[in-house]
């Protein structure tokens, strides 16, 4: 049962995608808007986050309360979240409620009230979010890791700082809306049991006359990298390790994914087996792949009690370096099975598919078919992964630790 993807790019630059899923009752809507925190003015970091909280506090002809009641009455679970480059506005409900949902989202994106008297409560929430991060060792470690690992401003924290939050004004919020939220480069994806012609007509009506300039380009500063320890009186030591990889869409992308899966694809993968199962060093250890258009990285995470943290770091790094020494057929077979299952199971979820087709379009300007992904997964071999790892070896690690004692990165 091949899923059908429809596509249309409107004259103003807005891209619309629909994946028709007729075996489900729900549908999901996903706007990928190029308004991430990397576009925050340096003096007002946290602005994108504050903005994303404000856009649902009244829009179109509804005030904050009326808008919430409208969303809730349609049974829409929704979120407005800020990433590094994009703001993601997401909603999921029954397919029959998608048309009225789109009306609400059009108001939220195009006609938010951004009421000045709501700014102070939103700033208060932003400050509490920052404070809460200090009580969350894992979250704090990852925020500080990203700051070191990615070229600025790609690694900056969406929360900003207490000082930068205080500097945000109603005018800067309005300016952010004008500068970054428009049709150009915005991708609207829908997945679920929905008719294409009706959807396209409705989106044309709601967004066809939306105007806006292309987003500004970012100037990147070189990443800091290196090793950092943050001293904190915690029970566990948090460990984050990162190194460069190839971006999504690169010819060796699937080989890079293969390498990550060999490390961390299932509970039989190397990190879980060597760090947790065989040595009992810690509960949580994993590796993941993160990508931007031009650059990507592999990020490993572990947390261990203070006395076992050094060995956890040693074993994790040793596993990264050991990849080039050999990978078995059996390992790659497990990798393929895991990747193929997840591709097919994703087709059961409208939310996953709405996000996936938007992501494909952003990176590749097209949506990959299930068959294409399956074939690429099938083509992963031990030899290909090893060749890839030789070309892009785990080295020049960015390491961040947080806990009672600093650790030594093994040579």
């Amino acid at each position, binding site marked *: 049962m091949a899923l059908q993807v429809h596509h249309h790019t409107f004259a103003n630059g807005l891209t619309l995608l629909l994946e028709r899923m007729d075996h489900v009752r729900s549908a999901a809507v996903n706007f990928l808007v190029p308004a991430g925190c990397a576009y925050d003015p340096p003096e007002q970091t946290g602005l994108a986050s504050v903005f994303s909280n404000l856009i649902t506090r009244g829009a179109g002809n509804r005030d904050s309360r009326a808008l919430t009641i409208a969303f809730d009455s349609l049974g829409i679970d929704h979120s407005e979240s800020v990433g590094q480059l994009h703001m993601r506005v997401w909603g999921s*409900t029954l397919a029959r409620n998608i048309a009225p949902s789109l009306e609400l989202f059009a108001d939220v994106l195009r006609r938010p009230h951004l009421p000045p008297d709501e700014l102070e*409560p939103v700033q208060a929430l932003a400050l509490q979010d920052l404070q*809460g991060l200090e009580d969350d060792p894992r979250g704090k470690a990852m925020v500080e890791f990203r700051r070191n690992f990615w070229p600025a401003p790609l690694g900056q924290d969406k929360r900003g700082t207490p000082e930068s939050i205080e500097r945000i004004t109603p005018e800067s919020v309005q300016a952010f809306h004008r500068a970054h939220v428009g049709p150009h480069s915005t991708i609207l994806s829908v997945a679920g049991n929905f008719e294409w012609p009706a959807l396209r007509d409705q989106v044309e009506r709601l967004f066809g006359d939306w105007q806006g300039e292309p987003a500004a380009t970012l100037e990147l500063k070189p990443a800091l990298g290196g090793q950092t320890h943050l001293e904190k009186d915690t029970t566990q030591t948090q460990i984050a390790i990162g190194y460069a990889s190839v971006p999504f869409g690169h010819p060796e992308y699937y080989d890079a994914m293969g390498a990550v899966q060999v490390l961390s694809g299932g509970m039989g993968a190397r990190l879980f087996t060597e760090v947790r199962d065989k040595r009992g*060093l810690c509960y949580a250890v994993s590796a993941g792949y993160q990508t931007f258009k031009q650059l990507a990285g592999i990020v490993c995470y572990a947390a261990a009690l203070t006395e076992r943290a050094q060995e956890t770091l040693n074993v994790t790094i040793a596993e990264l370096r050991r990849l080039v020494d050999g990978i078995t057929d059996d390992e790659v077979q497990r990798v393929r099975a895991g990747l193929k299952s997840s591709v097919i199971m994703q087709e059961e979820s409208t939310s996953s598919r709405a996000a996936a087709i938007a992501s494909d379009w952003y990176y590749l300007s097209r949506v990959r078919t299930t068959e294409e992904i399956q074939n690429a997964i099938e083509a992963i071999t031990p030899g290909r992964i090893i060749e890839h790892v030789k070309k892009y070896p785990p080295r020049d690690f960015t390491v961040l630790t947080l806990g009672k004692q600093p650790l030594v990165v093994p040579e």
Partner: protein
Amino acid sequence: MSFHKHTLANGLTIIGEISPSTRSVAVGFFVRTGSRDETPSEAGLSHFLEHMVFKGTPRRSALDVNYDFDRIGASYNAYTSEENTVFYAAILPEYLPQAIDILADIMRPSLREEDFTEEKKVILDEIGMYEDQPMFCAYDHARKAFFAPHPLGNSVLGTTESVGALTPKQMKNYFARRYVASNLTCVLAGNFNWDEAVKLIESQCSQWSTGDAPREYRTQATPRELLTTITKEKLNQEQVILIAPGPAADTKERYAADTLTMIVGDDTGSRLYWALVDPGYADSADLSYHDYDGAGAYFGSFSCEPEDTAENLAIIRAILTDVQRDGVSNEELAIAKSKILSRIVRGSERPMGRMQALGMSWTYLRTYRTVDEELQSFDAVTLKDLRDVLDKYPFDQLTILALGPLPSLTAT
């Protein structure tokens, strides 16, 4: 969509719901056991045993278990609560035989001593992980304050000391006592062939020992009104938990209780949201309903700057008093129903979600409920049902616990 049920001679029940349009199948073993079934010297044992189940059988080493699951691309895991331990996997339909083979095999684990010693270290690390999470700590303390001496107040993880003292012999005794066939249910949902699945399960599980695994104290807790402060100077925010008695899992009142908490304490659009989060007083605030075997409770929580805690607590209490006295509006009820309808439909679309719902319904009610029947039960809730549940389980008897930098907190 069709439902099937079969019970083996030793008491193991198998239930399944077939939905041919899904692309996967989920299978799980629900064991009716958890921290409430532990003696004081066994604290943390149910959860530790859940880990040990993955450490191998006479046929499989720990590595084999993980490798075999990974070979079929399974999404698999397990969890332990106060009263259930659940092992599950979701796979593509062609791998169901292998998935059943592995899951059924590991439900009779070897519990080898050397694995026990190694895995104990992982559990102690997991306890450390949660020690660093203030909201989790607050919940654990608050549940104990509310329920104790009722065993639902027992900690699922146990403590460093209690887990440290556990022995393989204790675990084997607990296993023999709690993992008898009649105390387990095998649940399937998604795209699969029922007869084939039953044959596979029967061939592996019919030799399992049988017997009774009774549970004591299947009653409501008898909490006192209480306000406790736990001071952690190194924290920045104050976490507050409020608990009040609610209906048990096997009552019809649970639908009203669920609907009520949606109105009062959902994370958006609720009374708590408008009173605390919208004005920026607390960065999170919610009220939810938890149903247990023979007991039930409303759990409220919020986190905020320490100096605002007393004021926020007073706001929540005022809301609860208000709802207790005047109830809620027709409009609030209608909106809550829309949200519930949408969440149930979406949560049931994937076999993994549906399998969990089927398993829980069977565990508590011994009945099968279709998604539409469940929706109808919520749709039938009236303002009078909400009034009745409020009268029977008033909000005003609260166990409150605050954890954070505050030296003390007094009720206003």
